């Protein structure tokens, strides 16, 4: 039960509106490419890509989708490959293409120092405990070599959420209306729900 994700909107799939007036051509185009053109690994090494993949699976676990997890790591690698994102950085944090490999290596180094094996090989509880320390900046200074661990953690978490909550499966699970143009909404008040919005479990 502790692994369960119980959406309030189990019967809702935002993609059912694909051909409706809620979706215009330009939106269908960008979402179709997102769903179909998942990028190949290009930036991170095979090993660091595997470390990131495990990190992402702890930051946004998807036990409810054993065979069809929303792809996140490929888009993070793509972001590094294209040096995408918001462009600015804190003075104390190196550029992302430098910081991310360094942070992932440091995380892996912490796992090896504590458990004798790679971060990818320790158990989920140990992974979570280690990530919790990184979040707090409670890390081995030599291993991290000046990289602010807490800032690295929040960058990775923020970018991870930016990928996951851009996926229609995530929109459906939280009952977000999703794309809405040219048709927007009419019933804006409390408990107001247009027929093309997510219905709750209890709704007919």
């Amino acid at each position: 039960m502790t692994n369960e994700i119980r959406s309030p909107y189990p019967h809702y799939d935002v993609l059912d509106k694909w051909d409706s007036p809620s979706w215009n051509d330009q939106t269908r185009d960008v979402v179709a490419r997102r769903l179909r053109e998942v990028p190949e690994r290009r930036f991170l090494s095979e090993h660091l890509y595997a470390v990131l993949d495990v990190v992402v699976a702890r930051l946004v676990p998807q036990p409810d989708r054993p065979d069809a997890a929303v792809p996140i790591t490929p888009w993070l690698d793509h972001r590094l490959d294209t040096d995408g994102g918001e462009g600015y950085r804190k003075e104390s944090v190196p550029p992302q293409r430098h910081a991310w490999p360094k942070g992932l290596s440091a995380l892996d180094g912490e796992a090896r120092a504590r458990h004798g094996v790679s971060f990818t090989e320790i158990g989920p509880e140990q992974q979570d405990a280690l990530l919790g320390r990184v979040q707090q900046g409670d890390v081995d200074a030599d291993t991290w070599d000046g990289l602010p661990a807490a800032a690295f953690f929040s960058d990775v978490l923020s970018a991870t959420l930016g990928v996951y909550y851009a996926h229609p499966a995530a929109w459906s699970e939280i009952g977000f209306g999703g794309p809405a143009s040219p048709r927007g909404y009419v019933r804006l008040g409390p408990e107001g729900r247009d027929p093309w919005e997510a219905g709750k479990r209890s709704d007919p």
Partner: protein
Amino acid sequence: MTSSTTPRAQGGRAPDVFSFDPDACVPMRTYADDDEVDFVIVGTGAGGGTLACKLAEAGFRVVALDAGPFWRPLTEFASDERAQGDLYWTDKRITAGDDPLELGSNNSGKGVGGSTVHFTMVSLRFRPDWFQSRSRLGYALDWPITYDDLAPYYAEAEDALKIAGPVRYPWGPPRGRYPYRPHEPNASGLVLAKGCERVGYRWASVPLATVSAPRGKAHPCVYRGFCVVGCSTNAKQSVLVTWIPRAIAAGAEVRDLAHVGQVEMGPGGRATGVVYHRDGAWCRQRAKNVVVAGYSIETPRLLLNSATGAFPDGLANSSGLVGRGLMAHANDGVYGTMDEEIRWYKGPPVMTLSEHWNYDDDKDFPGGYAFMSQGPLPISWAQSVAANRGMWGLDLRRYLLDYNRMAGFKIVGEVEPQDGNRVELAGHEDALGLKVPRVTFSYSENDKKLKRHARRVMREALEAAGGRDLWEADGTAHLMGGCRMGSDPATSVTNADGRTWDVPNLWVCDGSLFPTGGGVNPSLTIQALACRIGDRIATMARSGDL
């Protein structure tokens, strides 16, 4: 949205922003680079776009340059947070200080129309006393103009944008009716209304720059809720669909994807034009006057990057104040879970507000704040929860399942202008070889008092409205200052007309002029200032004072 890398506004044509035909254009006057135009304007947002219109309509020969693309909202703007990331200024920037600012999507635009393409459309006037904060309220600085100087231009900007607002706005001096009727508040806005009524604050519908009735080719706002990632119906009255089409119709040339790297100086201490990068090459536009309107980071950056032998510290910087006095707004928030479904993704994100603490001075800090209802889209909501609650993993995914029962308020809170909050040049260069800006920001002790007060007030109101499991969010919004206007060349960069004290044909026209930031969103005041500066320039030209 497909990123645009080839200029579209050229060859005597500019994109027709009102057409569903992706190739439709409007005719546009063009000028040769060696044609000495009356005004070259750097930036086409709330400051530069508005001024381009005013000056072109006054008969001046105007070229306005923007570093970003000329979008076609109807056919290019997707209903998608991630795909619309191209609207923001994401060039390299360094942030520093005790409270480093979030930039990018938070407060910057790159494209014709500037950040008004993705603003929340909140269109408020300053409290009149704020123009004389020092002499009337005892803090910060006075502006070199009064509210009465600006009032007619507020009205002009409100009419140009067909602001939809209440018949009688409850704060500030009496004003005429807003041009369009107010929007009916959404459920999120009604949470604020309920909380305010129970605690004893007045509230109001926010005057919004999205039409509540048809205007031209645009139908009324359909409440699709993607306002902060660009409006795909043109209901939003951004600069891209208001001042820019007017400017082009009046004979201005707007050049997209034209990144200005330097203001050029000639003999006699006068500017001669700008050097800009477009379509892979550096070009030079000659002009009798140069207006810098790149907002609070790029405007100081350009003046600093334009240093010459005669102006070794950057242009217009004899006061040493170029880049200083940078301000943001405190944007603290309080969120909670409601019993009923709110579904705050519907409608403009900000529909109701209380300006009580902008007008009540019984508090232990200078400055004021407004608090406003909210409606974040999923990605920014998830990121805010994670950043402020420290949640991740299944805990976070589960918490976010309640997205549709969330409500909350955020402030637009005044921060003090401090010389230490500033834009400088970092030691390294961007892809165009231009020095990257370094942006330093730290809250003052007074700012922190304001933030604490606001959080307490918002908690009280949200609890009164029925919110449970409350939590608080940190953050800033907007940018202001960095090239402040004033009455004394020793303590300001420009005079009341935005004309720099040091270079008589070099002007600034954007939010960087603000000596103080007030407790309301800045875009309407920037546009009113631009209208006033446009009128002043026309008046000076008639009397031979240019």
